[in-house]
Structures are given as C-alpha cells and as structure tokens.
C-alpha cells in the first residue's frame, strides 16, 4: 500500500468517511471531518509511521494531499 492509501485508510476509519470522497484536493471540511477527527487522524498517522506532525505544520495543510505529502516526506526521512 502507498503512503496515500494508508493515510486514506486511517482517515476513513477514524472520521467515518467513505474512501470515495477522500481525494488529494478535498479539504477536511469538505470531507466533513471535525477538529476532533483531524486530531485523532494526526495522532493515528503519527503512530503508524512513527513520525511527528507538529500542530504548526498541520495547520498549513490546505487539503488531504498536503497531509499525505507531509507524511510521505517525514516517513522517507525516518527511513533515511
């Protein structure tokens, strides 16, 4: 599974969102994820990839794609 697929899986499960409406362009608001869904998704993704997503960074995510890109970058750094 790609990073995007794994993140999609987590967000879908936590926020009870159908995977079909999660796209790179979709904002959390459009996906009807509330602030608690977002925090819980961040925490779950951090655990899954053993990375940290600081709130300061998370606030910059414009959409799901930004989120995935950040995770992919950090996960790659981790692997070194």
């Amino acid at each position: 599974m790609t990073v995007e697929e794994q993140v999609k899986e987590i967000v879908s499960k936590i926020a009870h969102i159908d995977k079909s409406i999660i796209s790179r362009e979709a904002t959390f608001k459009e996906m009807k994820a509330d602030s608690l869904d977002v925090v819980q998704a961040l925490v779950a993704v951090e655990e899954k990839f053993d990375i940290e997503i600081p709130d300061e960074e998370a606030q910059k995510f414009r959409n799901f794609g930004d989120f995935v890109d950040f995770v992919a970058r950090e996960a790659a750094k981790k692997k070194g």
Partner: protein
Amino acid sequence: MKPLQGKVALITGSGRGIGKAIALKFASQGCDIIVNYFRRREAAEQTAEEVRKLGVRVEVVKANVGDPEKIGELFDAVGKSFGHLDIFISNAASGVGRPIMEIDEKAWDWTLDINAKALLLCAQRAAPLMEGRNGKIVSISSLGSKFVWPTYAAVGISKAALEAVTRYLAIEFIPKGIAVNAVSASAVETEALKFYIKEGLVKDVKQTTPVGRMVTPEDVANVVYFLCSEEAGMIRGQTIIVDGGTSVAPWASVIEKGEG
C-alpha cells in the same frame, strides 16, 4: 538548600500555560522536572530550556494521557530516568466545545479520557514510585465542574469527574502517605483562553472578577505549590478555587473592583 532539592515532579501538559508555570515554580524551588507534552514539542522543549536554566534536571516525555498504553510508557520513562517520583500534577486537558446535543460518544470519550480517566490511571502508576516519599498529587480542575458555560458541557462534566477521582484518591492514598488535592481555576490567561475569547464564549473576564484582574498561570502554580508543601498536610481531597472571588460573587459586574 532549596525546599524541593532532590525531589522529582511530573507535570502533564507542561509545555504551555498553567502546566508550564507549575514546572517553573517547582524548578525554582530546586525540584527536578519531567515535562510532558502531547502535540507541541517545540513548546515543551522551550519549557525544558527555561527549567534547565534554573539549575535542575529536566526530562521531556511525549505522551497522550488519554491513551492508557502511553501513560504506561510515560511512567516507565520516569522510573527509568529518576527511579522515583515525589510530586505528580495532573494538568493536561483537552476537550470538545459543543452544545449538549452535538456531543457524540467519540467527543465524550476523548474529553473524559484525557481530563478524568488519566488522573486515575496516572495515580495508579505514580503511587509505587512515591513509596516512602510523602508523595503529593494535585489535579487541575476548572469552575466548569460546578458552573455552566456555553459549549463547555463535555469539559465541565469531565472536571466534575476529575474532582471526584481526586476525593477518592485522597482517602485511599492516606495509608500510602500520599496527599491528593485539586486546584480549580476560573478563566486563566493562557492560549486556551484565547480560543474561548475568539469563539465569543468568554468576554469581560475582568468585569466579572472582583479582584479586578484575570487569574494568571502563576496564581494557580502558587496554590499548587502550597498544596505540595508539608504545611498543607491536613488538606486532603479538597478542590481549592483560585478565581479572584468570581464564584462567590455572581453579580460581580456591578460591584466595585479591586485594583488587580
């Protein structure tokens, strides 16, 4: 020698706000500090730096206290680094600001787990580390446990539970030599408050505080410090309110204020 020299304190959620003020207060009295954070590493590192400058030992440990497994890891880290614990401050808090009709099970669990269940689980892990050391535990509550604010239901309810946990711990921990109390504050000048002001949920706090100024994190830290002293030894299971008189003066906006 400073009064808390050789002692170790763990303060959950001590990267910012009230927790940070407590960490700095205890460090200024010679106490070694474990700074715990969940989401903001930079803030926690900053607190640790300020604590270190006060000449004490400091460790930073990330843990979500809403997760029992992470609580285990947090206390394992404390045991590994220091071998014991003298003071535990249950300060970390979170919550979902929603009207009652919008509080779903997830929002309830998130808020209650972090704000109330964490005290129980942390106290269970803290007690063995405090054996023979006259340990102190203080939880941080808020006036929302007794009084109603818009969209504060989940947090207010969790704080009521927190205060109840505090009372039961206080009595059951007497044979262990551990003193347990809570400190409850009204609106405190922190980043969390900025959120409530932005949302229009808190306004004119100075107008409703008879003392004429807002409660600061340091005001809360000073009382927490007192509760951890031997002078406070006969205070058990209490919730001490730090609110500049707010809760006893419901008509404060029409009474004469202090100079702050």
